[in-house]
């Protein structure tokens, strides 16, 4: 479904990712782990066609070359991005935040579409708060809103950038539960970026680890689950 071939990523003159290759199969749940600054978010930004950075190499989505296409085109083709730091719109209501996630092109093929009812069912808090402004939300609520907002566009590939970053452990657990729940219901192909998450890893089909802009590990989750040394390195305690 998504194939990245020899991707180099640059901010100005500085290269931050080197010859990245990822191969994501339809329906899979994939992890992209790595410590701060290893280049995970830059890979997501590159997939979404956002500037900066500038990229070299090739990104294929369903066999179409999408490298450096405008982000709205990439989004319309079916890639949904939930950025780090949440990025809700604080100046409009929660309902309208969700509305912004809807796509105008109704060429969506899936038989089970994510609707407002789903957003409110998965995240009851959003229903309670639907007429409040985005600025009135807590961090956890904002995270739920960004996920629901992106799901409103019914992406066939979902990119989640550090969905539990900065959340209290119990809220982080809720968010992870929702991610797994949504996946169970919609079977959306999903890539999750985290520094490391054992909870999510246990449900994954495949995972990658980045360090200093390079992929240093590729393989089945159990290989990473067994490799405690690498885990410690990812969490910065080794």
């Amino acid at each position, binding site marked *: 479904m998504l194939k990245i071939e020899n991707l180099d990523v640059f901010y100005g003159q500085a290269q931050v990712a080197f010859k990245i290759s990822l191969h994501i199969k339809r329906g899979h749940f994939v992890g992209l782990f790595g410590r701060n600054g290893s280049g995970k978010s830059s890979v997501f930004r590159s997939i979404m066609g956002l500037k900066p950075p500038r990229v070299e190499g090739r990104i294929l989505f369903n066999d179409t070359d999408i490298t450096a296409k*405008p982000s*709205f085109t990439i*989004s*319309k083709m079916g890639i949904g991005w939930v950025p780090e730091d949440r990025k809700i719109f604080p100046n*409009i209501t929660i309902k309208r*935040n969700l509305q*912004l996630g809807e796509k105008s092109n109704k060429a969506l093929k899936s038989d089970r579409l994510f609707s407002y009812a789903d957003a409110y069912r998965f995240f009851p808090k959003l229903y309670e708060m639907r007429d409040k402004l985005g600025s009135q939300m807590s961090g956890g609520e904002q995270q739920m809103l960004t996920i629901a907002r992106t799901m409103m566009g019914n992406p066939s590939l979902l990119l989640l950038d550090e969905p539990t970053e900065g959340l209290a452990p119990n809220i982080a657990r809720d968010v992870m539960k929702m991610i797994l729940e949504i996946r169970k219901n919609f079977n959306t192909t999903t890539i999750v970026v985290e520094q490391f998450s054992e909870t999510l890893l246990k449900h994954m089909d495949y995972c990658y680890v980045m360090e200093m802009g390079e992929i240093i590990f590729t393989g089945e989750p159990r290989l990473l689950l067994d490799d405690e040394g690498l885990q410690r390195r990812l969490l910065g305690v080794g």
Partner: protein
Amino acid sequence: MLTLSLFLNGIVLGLVYAAVALGFSLVLGVSGVINFAHSITFTFGAYFFWAMYKHVGYLPAMLLAPAAVAVIGFFVERLVIRRVYGQDPLFGLLITLGFAMGMEELIRMVFGPATHNVDAPSFANGVIIFGNFLYSQYRLFIALVAAIMVAAVWLFTEKSRYGTVVKAGMFNSEMVGALGHDLYKMRIWILVLGSFIAGLAGILAAPIWSVKSGMGSSILMPSFLIVLMGGLGSIPGTLVAGLMVGITLSMGVLVAPRFVDIMPYILMGLIVYFWPRGLMGQQNIIE
């Protein structure tokens, strides 16, 4: 009575400023460009109107002239403004200012350096009498049309679906694009809309200020100040700031006639000192 007249004049002036500043603010919000070429849309509106209103009639000209200005806005976006998207805001400011100065020269070449007069329309050519107070019907007409424009833009952003995209785009255009909305198209539409409104404002002002090539420059600074004072992208903020500037300029003559011109700047300095994001802004203009 003089005080009341000046106060009302201030409101009328403020509404015209607010209408011009709205386009400025929306473009800055969704495109990140400080568009100093906005001033020429005001001038073009007045000139086009002057050139056609005797032939096609007052009200038709009030629609046709801004429509022509909107077309100019479209080409300005294509030829000039789109080149500076995503670049240092200073580039945009310089290139649009240069463009505006060039266009002002062009207007002088084509229409001549002389000042032209435009008559107020016959349906609003008299005075309104309240007891022993007289006020110009035409100024009330200006206030009405300008207020309708501001209200229409407000309704558009608050109530319409596309208005929501615009509002969100002012806050974070990258995110709006990544959700599948075509930013490039939105930027063009907003520029066209802003040009139409400023063109119409130029027409409204024409019978009072008369038509001259420098009329755009004289409204540029007040509207820029209003954007800073009101807060980027906030329509209520722009309206309040517009009225404050209008009333200050108009009533200032009662207090210190020699210092009127500098008063809006002092006002702006005070407001931005206490509210760095403007009265109702959610973001600083360069954030």
